[in-house]
């Protein structure tokens, strides 16, 4: 209520101002800045399309994968994108259950980011099968004449169920949250076609309290379902590694370590996007420095959990007494891929330490750079886990190097293109701030004195 000291919206905004400010980017021709960003995103997307075309027409032999490195940037990309998605669900579901009112300014865009990141993950993981048009037959249990079924004891199959459930539930949650705001956009529309489109999208929402009652119940249920779901998804992704026997993968710390890393990387991506978005669309009164500071605190906290996990893994490798475990971890630090390990440590563990200082947590330039470092660091974390563990296992006779080719990097660039293209279209066509939710945490015009 209005008695709380916390100011979530600055600038003395009224209810009407929120509608005006949030709808402005949707109702005007995109700015030059938007077109520049969109063009760059489209170029990235084209690089990806070319790389995928090359892969489909020639085969996955165009990648650097071979024995023993059967997984490389393909699975690195997958884990990277699924991880990024987790921050959106954390903000929309877990912070909702904990009644964190500051989530209202950022939850819409963070959820959108989740959807787009999971789309990228699904694209990568389907195309890494080489012939994705057959993937449905390999991955899903479906009745067939030969009575063959999938192997339910494989973590890779658990992944199929986990990621597809995650995508479906996140999409529903996001859409349900959008409905009242789509109605606001509809009610402002003057153009007939525009009005019709938003009327259909808003499902004919009219703000009835009888509807709000069911709506709020359903919203809370979605939050309650998404919370264990998001924790399960990255745990299941970590099982892809942890269930195997390979030194460096075979560790019980993986599920919590992966979940913390996912939230860490996702929050960094949210900061990257929000810093640009609030600048581009003038949302500075809704996404305030207080919001960003809170996110930087989460980055600092989860970054240290990740750092602790790195240390713990090393300790256990030494304490296990197994020469293979010890070898795998020494190889990470000082082997041929030493540079990727040290990029990971410096970006993920050292760089966020600057957030101990309040002035740094509230400095836009600093947080933007650190968020990029964390994104890079978390990409290399997955690269380190996958590549350094695979390239040297038990028998030195089967050791080999893995070098990603141009087409593999092309696909990574392509996923960046998909992600940013979708995000830029989102801010152009859908309300990027949850108007209804922001209004509900503002002081009432009666008490706050700002008469609308």
């Amino acid at each position: 209520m209005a008695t709380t000291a916390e100011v979530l919206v600055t600038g003395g905004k009224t209810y009407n101002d929120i509608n005006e400010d949030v709808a402005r980017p949707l109702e005007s021709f995109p700015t030059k800045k938007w077109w520049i960003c969109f063009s760059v995103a489209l170029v990235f997307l084209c690089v990806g399309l070319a790389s995928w075309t090359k892969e489909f027409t020639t085969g996955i032999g165009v990648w650097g994968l071979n024995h023993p490195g059967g997984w490389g940037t393909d699975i690195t990309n997958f884990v990277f994108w699924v991880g990024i998605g987790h921050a959106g669900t954390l903000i929309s579901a877990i912070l909702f259950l904990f009644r964190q009112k500051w989530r209202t300014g950022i939850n819409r865009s963070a959820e959108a980011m989740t959807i787009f990141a999971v789309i990228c993950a699904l694209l990568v993981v389907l195309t890494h099968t080489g012939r994705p048009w057959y993937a449905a037959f390999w991955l899903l249990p479906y009745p067939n004449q030969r009575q063959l079924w999938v192997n339910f004891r494989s973590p890779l199959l658990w992944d199929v169920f986990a990621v597809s459930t995650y995508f479906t539930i996140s999409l529903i949650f996001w859409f349900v949250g959008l409905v009242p705001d789509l109605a606001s956009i509809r009610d402002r529309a003057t153009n007939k076609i525009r009005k019709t489109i938003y009327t259909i999208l808003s499902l004919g929402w009219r703000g009835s309290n009888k509807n709000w009652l069911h709506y709020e119940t359903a919203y809370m249920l979605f939050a309650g379902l998404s919370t264990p779901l998001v924790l399960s998804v990255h745990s299941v992704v970590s099982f892809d590694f942890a269930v195997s026997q390979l030194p460096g993968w075979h560790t019980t710390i993986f599920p919590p370590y992966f979940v913390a890393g996912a939230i860490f990387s996702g929050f960094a991506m949210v900061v990257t996007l929000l810093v640009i978005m609030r600048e581009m669309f003038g949302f500075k009164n809704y996404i305030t420095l207080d919001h960003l500071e809170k996110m930087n605190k989460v980055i600092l906290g989860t970054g240290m959990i990740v750092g602790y996990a790195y240390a713990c893994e090393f300790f256990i490798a030494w304490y296990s007494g197994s020469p293979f475990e010890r070898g795998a971890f020494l190889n990470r630090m000082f082997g041929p891929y030493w540079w990727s390990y040290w990029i990971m440590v410096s970006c993920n563990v050292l760089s966020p330490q600057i957030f101990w200082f309040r002035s740094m947590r509230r400095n836009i330039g600093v947080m933007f750079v650190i968020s990029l470092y964390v994104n890079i660091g978390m990409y290399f974390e997955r690269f380190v886990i996958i590549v350094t563990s695979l390239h040297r296992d038990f028998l030195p006779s089967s050791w080999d190097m893995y070098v990603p080719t141009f087409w593999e990097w092309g696909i990574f660039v392509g996923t960046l293109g998909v992600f940013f293209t979708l995000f830029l279209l989102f801010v152009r066509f859908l309300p990027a701030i949850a108007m209804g939710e922001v209004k509900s945490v503002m002081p009432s015009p009666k008490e706050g004195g700002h008469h609308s």
Partner: protein
Amino acid sequence: MTSHSSERTAPLKAVVGFFDNPEDIMTGMKTVRAANFEQFDAYTPFPVHGLDEVQGLKKSWIPWVTLALGMSGTSIAFVMQYWMSHEWPHIIGGKPFNSWPAFVPIMFELTILLAGISTFVALLISCGFPNIKKKIFDPSITNNKFAIAIEEPVKAKSGFKLFSESEAIQVLKTAGAKDVRAVIQEGWFS
């Protein structure tokens, strides 16, 4: 105003009163509820907490659907995996065919999937979405106005005050509405 058989074709009437803030609609709702009309509802840009009790709304039934379908998801996933593992028996890692601990992740995922999808469907049904027949009373309701509408029921029930435009206007004015209008319920595309 004629009606063929029991179906009504004439548009229904309603009286809408507008308020400026959540506090005023709360006090106004008490007056409107006491007037004992059959059909009345609040229309607000965001959920106003505590208004449900004042309006006398019962709790939503959606959680029961979520629970039932969630539990079905768990069972379906277990039965599916158990049956398929026997249907095509393979020894993997020396484990028995019914190695149920390995089935837990998919049981969990299908629980969430079915619970989530059914919650969404239940939400659509409970709110009557997609709603084509009832247009919003005023565009300001999704912006900054809070409204109470007293609506003409399709078929009047006994035990309630009979709908009358003048009386409804009077009640809303007493309730403190700033602006009271008599309107006709239109559809979105009519």
